[in-house]
């Protein structure tokens, strides 16, 4: 009968899909060497304790959601965590900081990643920090984990060192300064031979957190010139290019080009990066100068709640001011002890020297030591 033939086909399909399922493997740790340049760090740190596990590893799967700015960093950390603890599983969905906090408060995820700390002032009649507290049954902590510096990258023949003040940078990106040998640039770059060529500004044509942070900096540090509030879409002048890769590529191939881009892209494309002079002398973008900005940030939370307030207008010498800090938001005391232990184990791994150092290769800056000590104290206090 026809039905029998149908059920045979159905059975075949079922067996097929089941066998596909049976063959599937989560183990990718051995096949990671093929990408060359940037993959080294994770596998190296993983192999030392590959057989280990034990109390450093979580026993239950944890779910997290939030900021896309820390996506690459946390993926790297998850990857090396997976090498260390074969059974531990961490899922991170980069849906954006706002979504992450909402899902955390709603109890849908175990911790949230966010570019800004939980707000303590009311917004729409609700205070994020209080809402989170209500869900946790204890205080929710903001733990800074990743810092992402933004470089002002440029391509001008014969100019290896370029210093910009916030005002001049804002004017360039606003289109008020159009020539490289403009007196305003020449004044702060005495000794450099600036060509008379046009400045070609490239900006991100897609909505981007980088744009948001960069415009936030311009707005705070050069409020007289850059009057627009921070926004994900570009309000300045120039030519739009898709994604970080696009602006970096365009700057690289255009003499006289300038753009703002994450550190990793500037490095990968071999672009020169401008030094920033906020008033305390020109500062190069290095992990130290970025770390100094993080270390110099004011802690607005109490105790182990490490919410930081970055000072974009800092005049402290040797501090690079254009960066963002992203947090992991966790319950200080959770209802599920096993889950809290798993979160603790993962964050401990994330904050470890190996992982933080590896982040440097992919364009983040490691946490400075003072902050790292505080972060570790906070993680230890999670229960």
């Amino acid at each position: 009968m026809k039905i029998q033939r149908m059920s045979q086909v159905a059975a075949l399909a079922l067996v097929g899909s089941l066998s596909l399922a049976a063959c599937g493997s989560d183990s990718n740790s051995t096949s990671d060497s093929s990408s060359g340049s940037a993959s080294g760090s994770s596998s190296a740190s993983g192999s030392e304790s590959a057989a280990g596990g034990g109390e450093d590893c979580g026993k239950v799967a944890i779910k997290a959601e939030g900021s896309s700015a820390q996506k690459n960093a946390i993926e790297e950390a998850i990857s090396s965590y997976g090498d260390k603890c074969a059974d531990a599983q961490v899922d991170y969905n980069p849906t954006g900081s706002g979504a992450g906090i909402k899902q955390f408060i709603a109890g849908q995820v175990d911790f949230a990643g966010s570019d800004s700390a939980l707000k303590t002032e009311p917004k729409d009649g609700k205070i994020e920090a209080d809402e989170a507290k209500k869900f946790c049954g204890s205080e929710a902590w903001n733990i800074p984990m990743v810092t992402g510096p933004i470089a002002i990258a440029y391509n001008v023949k014969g100019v290896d060192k370029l210093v910009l003040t916030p005002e001049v940078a804002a004017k360039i990106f606003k289109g008020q300064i159009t020539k490289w040998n403009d007196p305003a640039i020449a004044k702060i770059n005495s000794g450099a031979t600036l060509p008379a060529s046009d400045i070609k500004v490239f900006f991100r044509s897609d909505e981007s957190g980088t744009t948001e942070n960069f415009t936030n900096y311009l707005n705070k540090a050069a409020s007289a010139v850059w009057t627009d509030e921070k926004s994900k879409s570009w309000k300045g002048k120039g030519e739009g290019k898709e994604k970080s890769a696009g602006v970096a590529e365009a700057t690289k191939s255009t003499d006289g080009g300038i753009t703002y881009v994450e550190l990793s892209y500037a490095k990968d494309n071999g672009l020169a990066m401008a030094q920033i002079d906020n008033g305390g002398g020109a500062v190069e973008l290095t992990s130290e100068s970025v770390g100094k900005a993080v270390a110099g940030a004011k802690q607005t939370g109490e105790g182990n709640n490490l919410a930081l307030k970055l000072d974009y207008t800092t005049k402290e010498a040797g501090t690079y001011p254009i960066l963002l800090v992203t947090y992991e938001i966790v319950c200080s005391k959770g209802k599920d002890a096993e889950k809290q232990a798993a979160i603790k184990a993962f964050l401990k791994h994330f904050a470890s020297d190996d992982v933080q150092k590896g982040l440097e290769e992919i364009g983040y800056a490691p946490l400075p030591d003072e902050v790292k000590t505080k972060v570790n104290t906070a993680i230890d206090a999670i229960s």
Partner: protein
Amino acid sequence: MSTLDTAGGASAATTRSEYASGDLGGKSAGREIKNQIARIVVWGCFLIACVPLVWILGSALVKGGHMLLSPDWWSHSQAGITARRVGGGAVHAIQGSLIQALVTALISVPIGVMTAVYLVEYGRGKLARAVSFMVDILTGVPSIVAALFVYAVWVTTFGFQRVAFAVCLALMLLMVPTIVRSTEEMLKLVPNELREASYALGVPKWKTIFKIVLPTAFSGIVTGILLGLARVMGETAPLLILGPYTKNIATNLFSGNMATLPTMIDRDRTEALQPAIDRVWGAALTLILIILILNLLGRLVAHFSKVRN
């Protein structure tokens, strides 16, 4: 398919008219011009309709084809693979998509088929009209609305986690009406003489339906189910809202995240790094292939077994 048929029909019509004109000798220049214009328009429309199809298939093949050739693609998950690392596979997403489609089908098929049986065999009066009307409305519900409805019930009201089963519930809302409609059409095609012959032999109504009506329309019903399944597998909104992505293989419908092909595409779609871009195209091509196979299967079943008269 239908575009193809139209174009084929049109060209056949043209050859016939040319043939006829040759026989009768001479035809007005006006009609000749109109004929040419019509031919160009029809062919033009056909080609325009083909452009996006060929374009999508072509670019997915060119950009993602090489991913599917690697055996890892079909045997490994993305666990531990970051956007800048080459390697890993899509087995977690393929499996997740298949599991969710299967569970959705297991729930929707009995409901859908039974509803159709009721509408065709039993339904008279107000209730039947109400059911029919509701099915019509459900057919028109956008997937995002179904997803948000399930979110409101499952997460907001009951306070459950976002899990694969919630996705299945939302997909079910989309699949049931399509199954009801297609099954209804198939059951209506079953000749009444068959039912009457069965009754004449003293077979009760329920037995007639199960032994005579449903088997007769079986292939048509299967086709409808397969097409409904293909539609549901390509659905994205419920997955984005109710099914967070994971890079690990997951089989638990009621706890934890489960990956699917659409969420795998969504995950890396904004990424600028080449390995991630390759994976996005690979996943897109895999999804297209799976849906294509389901569609072809549906048509094959329909082709080889028509409702017997």
